[in-house]
Each structure stands twice: as C-alpha cells, then as structure tokens.
C-alpha cells in the first residue's frame, strides 16, 4: 500500500471507528511504539483460542465473517479459517471421511443421517504456535511471533517465497493473490488490540469458538483447560499450538 493511501485509511479509520482515547492510543501504535499506547499493553496479553467441538453446529458463520472482516478474496478459495466435517463409520477411526466444500463458506450440503456413523464439525484456523515452524523458516524476518502471542506477517518485508506456506503443518497459510505475499489469520489483531473479540468468535452462535488471553487471570480459559479433556492439533510436532480443542476426536488430524 502506498503511504498516501495508508495515511488516508489510517486517518479516516481513526475518525470513523475510534473514540478519542482509542485514537490517541493508535497514534502510539502508528509510531511503532504500541507498548506506550494507553489502552493496550503488549506485555499484558498472551493470546490463545479455544474450540469446543460439541458446540459447533457447522453453520459457517465464522468463515463468512472472517472473509468479510479481513477482505480475504472470495475466490479463489483461500481461507484464514474454515470448518471441516468428519464422518467416522463404526470403529474405523483411521479412515474418517472429511468434507469442507468451499471451506464451509456456504455451510454443508445436506447428507442423510447414517445410523452407524459418528459425525462432527472441526473449525480450523492458525494455531498461533509459540514455536511456529512457519516463523522458523522465514529467511527475512517477515513473519514472527508477536510479544503478545500472535503469529503475524509483515507484508512490506515478505518476499513471497512460500517457505512458510509449506512449513505450516496445519495448512493455515496461502499467498494472497493480490499482494503476492504470505497471508494468514492474524487473530484479528486489529480487533483484539481494540478490546473486541475476533470476527469469527463474534459471529459464532453457540460459543464454540472463543478468543482467550492466558495472561488474564479472570479469563474463562483457565477453567476451560482445567476442567475438560483438551487436545491441540498434531502435538507430536511440538509447535506449541495455542489453539485448544475440547473433546477432539482421535480421527482428526
């Protein structure tokens, strides 16, 4: 983005959307010193995400909201978040049938219920790993784990070499067809630093998806982790994933 356009967007965005206090905070952010902003302190947060499999109804509201909020092109079908449907026949845990047409942007095609089948939805997004393989392979420091625990991309630094796209074990990255730079879930960094939740969690009707802050002692995530059976995706890869699934079936990979 050229700087005139960026300034315009910043100025108008500020006037349109922010209270004076938040606007003052943004000045610090834009000055490259977000830790000095009165409303948001980098050191006070360690962001994470929780997903309650049994609550997900597969409506796809999160997928639509994410594309709208983050201007992810509708087609080709790239996603920052998507939902998969798993169907497991009888005892065949090793061969689940998985579908996710258009990432569930339009929900799921109606399938007849099969009596010998177990089926459930699995929302997926960037796991905001604490030891991200994608960050480790970046040759130029264009992607990084922020001090508050979010894996972000520096668009102005990214070469578009695609190493990170291949390195992510969860398939959460793609090359944006317009900028030709790596793109991914930012955990709605522009929202969570303004006190809002992510667009996907805001639009989840059943509380299946929740933003969580591990540094906030009052965050319900602590009870969530303590009281439930929790799993992260591909724990054997030691990515330090901070996307915590409740009641995740072993068939999910």
């Amino acid at each position, binding site marked *: 983005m050229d700087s005139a356009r960026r300034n315009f967007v910043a100025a108008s*965005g500020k006037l349109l959307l922010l209270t004076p206090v938040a606007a003052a905070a943004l000045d610090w952010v834009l000055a490259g010193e977000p830790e000095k902003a009165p409303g948001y302190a980098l050191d006070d947060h360690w962001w994470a995400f929780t997903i309650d499999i049994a609550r997900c109804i597969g409506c796809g509201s999160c997928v639509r909201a994410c594309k709208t909020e983050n201007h992810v092109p509708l087609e080709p079908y790239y996603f920052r978040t998507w939902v998969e449907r798993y169907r497991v026949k009888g005892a065949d845990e090793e061969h689940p049938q998985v579908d996710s047409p258009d990432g569930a942007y339009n929900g799921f095609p109606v399938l007849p219920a099969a009596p010998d089948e177990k089926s459930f939805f699995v929302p997926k997004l960037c796991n905001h790993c604490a030891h991200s393989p994608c960050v480790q392979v970046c040759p130029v420091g264009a992607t990084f784990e922020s001090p508050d625990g979010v894996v972000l991309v520096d668009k102005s630094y990214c070469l578009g070499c695609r190493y990170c796209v291949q390195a992510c074990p969860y398939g959460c990255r793609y090359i944006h067809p317009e900028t030709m730079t790596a793109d991914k879930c930012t955990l709605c960094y522009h929202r969570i630093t303004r006190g809002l939740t992510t667009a996907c969690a805001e639009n989840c009707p059943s509380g299946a998806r929740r933003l969580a802050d591990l540094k906030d002692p009052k965050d319900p995530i602590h009870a969530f982790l303590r009281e439930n059976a929790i799993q992260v995706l591909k724990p054997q890869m030691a990515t330090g994933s901070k996307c915590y699934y409740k009641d995740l079936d072993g068939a999910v990979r």
Partner: protein
Amino acid sequence: MKEGLGHASHLFRMAGLFVVGLVLFLVVRSLLVPADFGKYGHFRAGALADNREKPVVYAGRQACTDCHDEAVTRKAAGAHAGIGCETCHGALAAHADDPAAGKPQRPDPRVTCLVCHERNAGKPSWFKVIVVEEHAPSGPCADCHAPHSPAVG
C-alpha cells in the same frame, strides 16, 4: 627487515580491503534495515502497528446496545441470546458508526434460519433442527418464530 615487511605487505593490503568491505557492509546494512528491526525479536516492530491499523468491519454486539434497546432485550431473553446481531444482519460497523448513512437491509426471515437449523450430518444432538419440507415447506419462518426470540407461544 625491509625484505620481511615486503613479504607481509600483501597481508596488509588484504586487511585494508577487509576493513573497507566491513565498513561498506555496515553502511549498507544500516541503510537497508529499519531502525526498529529487532526491537522485540527478529522482525520489524512497526509490523505490529501495520497489523493493527486496519478498520473494523463487524462492530460487535455490544455496539448495538446503544441504540436498539428493544431488539437487544428481546434477544437476551430467548434462545438466541448467544448469537451476535451481525451474524444474522451482516457486518454493520459503518451503520453503527453513522446510522444516517443508510438503513440496513432486513435479513430474509427464512434463508437466515435454515443456515443453522436444517437437519444435517454433523450437527450435535443438543442443537434443535428441523426437516424443512416437513416443518415449514414455504413462507417465512418469522410468521411463527420471532427471530430475536424464537420460542413459539
């Protein structure tokens, strides 16, 4: 002695070249690498700000409470209490900021509901679903269910 130095002079030339090269590298590096690179880690600190500066598109359910008391209280009392307003109404940050800019369209009171409530493989058993051809083959669901508080009767 002179002979000895003479033999070593190519080493001094090398050392000189090395120093020139090093200075050149440092100058070029300081020009190319932004000042804030490395402040928090191996990245440009300003990238944090870049990721923050985007405008918000979904105002969030809290925003609607300022102006739509009736819908808000209605919804809070019913089974749809947990659903954000914009999940059915679409992104409305522009509207919440300036309602005069245009009246939001009302969601289709049939299409909207089926996105969630049609029976399908994968839906958890606690969630109430219908088979639409049996339950209401045509017409708006809102004829019988108030969208903001859907229980009948």
